C-alpha cells in the first residue's frame, strides 16, 4: 500500500504543542470514508510515517487530524502550512461501538490528547441524538492551557442534550473550573450503570483507573471500550511492532472491549 497525497486546507494550533490539520484528497475520491476510532498512517515526504487517529466528523468531506508535535514526523508536520501535501494510508483499525450504544447512555472519558480520537464518535451520536439516552463527555487535561477544541467544547456545553465536565490535574491562577483527576468526574455523570456504554481514551494508567471506577459502579466489563496505542511501522499487521500480548493494536484494535485487555493491562512491560 502506498501513501495517497492529500493537501492541507487549514492548520490550527489548539495549544502550544498540539495542532489540527484539515486535509482534502489531491485527486480521486471526494470524501474520505472512515469509522469513528480508526486511524491513518500519515506520511511526510522523505521523513517517515506516524499513526494518528482520525478526529473529524464522519459526515464531513474534509479529513481532520489533531496531534501533538513530539517526534520527528509530527515535528516536521508542524512546520507545514496550507497548500502543502502529506501522504495518507488508511483508514485502519477497529471502531467505536456507535451502533451498539443505541438505546443506551453513553459516557465518553477523554484524558489529555485522548479527546481527538473520541470526537468522531461524539459527532456521530449527536447526529442521531434521538437514538441514545444520556450522553456525557468527561475530559481531563494537565492544565487549562492544554485544553483542545476550546470553541467546540463551549458549543457542546451550551447544548441541553449533552453534559460536558472538564477538569485539570493542575490549576493555574484564576482557573475556576474543576481540579482533580478525570476519574473524580465520573460520579457527576449520572448514567444508568446497567445500560451504559463507556468509551475511554488516554494514558494507559488513566484508562485503567477510569475502568475501575466504572466497574465499581456496576457497569459491565463488556460495555467498557478503550483505545490503545503502541509503536507502529506498517499499520496493517505485518511488521510486528504494535503487538500487545497476542493482539496487534493496528488490526485487532485500536478500539478494544475491556475483557480483551483485562489480563494484559496489569502485566508489566508486556
Amino acid at each position: 500500500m502506498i501513501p495517497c497525497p492529500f493537501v492541507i486546507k487549514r492548520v490550527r494550533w489548539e495549544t502550544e504543542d498540539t495542532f489540527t490539520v484539515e486535509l482534502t484528497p489531491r485527486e480521486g475520491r471526494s470524501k474520505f470514508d472512515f469509522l469513528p476510532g480508526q486511524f491513518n498512517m500519515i506520511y511526510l515526504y522523505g521523513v517517515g510515517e506516524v499513526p494518528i487517529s482520525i478526529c473529524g466528523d464522519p459526515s464531513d468531506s474534509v479529513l481532520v487530524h489533531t496531534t501533538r508535535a513530539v517526534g520527528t514526523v509530527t515535528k516536521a508536520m508542524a512546520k507545514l502550512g496550507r497548500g502543502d501535501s502529506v501522504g495518507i494510508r488508511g483508514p485502519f483499525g477497529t471502531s467505536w461501538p456507535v451502533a451498539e450504544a443505541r438505546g443506551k447512555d453513553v459516557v465518553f472519558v477523554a484524558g489529555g490528547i485522548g479527546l481527538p480520537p473520541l470526537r468522531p464518535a461524539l459527532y456521530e451520536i449527536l447526529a442521531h441524538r434521538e437514538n441514545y439516552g444520556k450522553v456525557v463527555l468527561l475530559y481531563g487535561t494537565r492544565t487549562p492551557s492544554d485544553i483542545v477544541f476550546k470553541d467546540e467544547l463551549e458549543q457542546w456545553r451550551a447544548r441541553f442534550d449533552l453534559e460536558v465536565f472538564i477538569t485539570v490535574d493542575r490549576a493555574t491562577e484564576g482557573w475556576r473550573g474543576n481540579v482533580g483527576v478525570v476519574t473524580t468526574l465520573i460520579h457527576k455523570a449520572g448514567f444508568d450503570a446497567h445500560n451504559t456504554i463507556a468509551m475511554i481514551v488516554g494514558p494507559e494508567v488513566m484508562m485503567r483507573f477510569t475502568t475501575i471506577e466504572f466497574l465499581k459502579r456496576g457497569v459491565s466489563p463488556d460495555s467498557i471500550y478503550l483505545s490503545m496505542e503502541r509503536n507502529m511501522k506498517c499499520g496493517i499487521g505485518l511488521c510486528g511492532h504494535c503487538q500487545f500480548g497476542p493482539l496487534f493494536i493496528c488490526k485487532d484494535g485500536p478500539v478494544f472491549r475491556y475483557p480483551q485487555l483485562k489480563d494484559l493491562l496489569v502485566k508489566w512491560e508486556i
Partner: protein
Amino acid sequence: MYRIEPDALNELIQVLQKEQYAVIGPTLRGEAIVLDTISSASELPVGKTDEQAPAHYRVEDKAEKTFFGASVGPHSWKRYFFPPTLKMFSARKDGESFEVTEDIDNPESTKRYALLGVRACDLSAIQVQDKVFGGGAYRDPAYLRLRQQAFIVAVNCTRAGGTCFCSSLRTGPRARVGFDLALTEVVDQGHFLLVEVGTDKGEAVLSGVQRQPAKDEEVEGAEHAIRAAAQLTGRSLEPDQTREILYSNAEHPRWEVVGKRCLSCANCTMVCPTCFCTTVEDVTDLTGSNAERVRKWDSCFTLDFSYIHGGSVRASSRARYRHWITHKLASWVDQFGTTGCVGCGRCITWCPVGIDITEEFRVIRETYLMNTRGKSST
C-alpha cells in the same frame, strides 16, 4: 518414488537453470554452510557435516561424499521470499506536493528461485510464513509473488542435528507437503538419492533428469534412516498448551535469570526462519527531490522496537526475551493458528551465550504443570 544417481543432481540443477530459475543451495563459505546461488552440484557442501550445540558451530569433514550431510546453517530460506531489504516505493518531489510510485518490477520481488535442499523444519517454516504474509486481511504482494514463482526441492534428514527438535513439534524430519520434489540421500547401500514427486511442476522438471523407479528395499532403507533421525533427536519441546503455560507465567522468576544472560544481540531473530518483524526507513537523496521507503528486517530485541511517548514499553532484556518466546510459542497460535517455532535449532546454535528455547520453556512448563496438578488434586 524414483531413484537418481549422484551425477543426476547436477542434471537437476541444469534443468532448473534452463527453466530460468536462480538455483539456491547450501554451500561452504569460510567456516559455515550458508545459502547462496549455486551453478553445479559440486558447489554443495560435499563431504561435509556440522557439529552444533548451544553457542557452538563447526563444519567437519566426513568419510562419505554426501551432498546434504550437514544440518541447517545460519541462513534460512525466508531471505528469498521475505528479503532482508525491500524497496516499498519511490517518491518524487513535485512543487508543494509529491508523487509516489510502487516499484512493481523490482528484481528483488520478481526473481524466480529454485530452493535446493529445504529441510522439513524449514519447509514448515515456509508454511508458517505463508500464513503470516498471505493469510490476513492485508497481504505482502512481494512475498506472494516470489513464493508463487518458486520451485522447492526438499531434503529429508537422515541424521539428527545437534540442536534441532522437529520431531516433538511434528514438523519433521520427513517433509510431508509443500514441496515440488523431495530428496532422501542414501549412503549405506551405495550412494544414491530417492526422489518423491510433490507436484506436477516437480514431475515436469524431474522428467529432464535420468531416473529409475526406486526398489522397495531402497525406500524402506531410507524410511528407516529418517525414523532413526527422529529418535536420535536430543531435544524436545511439547507444543500443547503453550498459551496457558506462557500467558499465566509472565512473572516467573526464570525471566530474570534468562534476562541476565541475554545480550539482546538479536541473532536469534535473524537466523529464525519464521521471525517476520520489519521496520521502515525513509531516505532522500542529497538534492531532496527523490525519496524512498525501504523495508528492513527488524528485531523485537532492539531497545527502540517498542518505543512510544518518550520510552520503550519493553525496556529490560528480561521483558524482550519473554516477549520473543511468548510470541514464538503462544501468541503465534492465537494470531496464526500454529506455533511459530519449527524446531530448527538455529536460535540455540547461534545464540552467543547459548540460551536454549527448549530449556527455557521446559522450566516454565514444569511450574505450570506443578501448579495445575496441585489444583486438580484438591
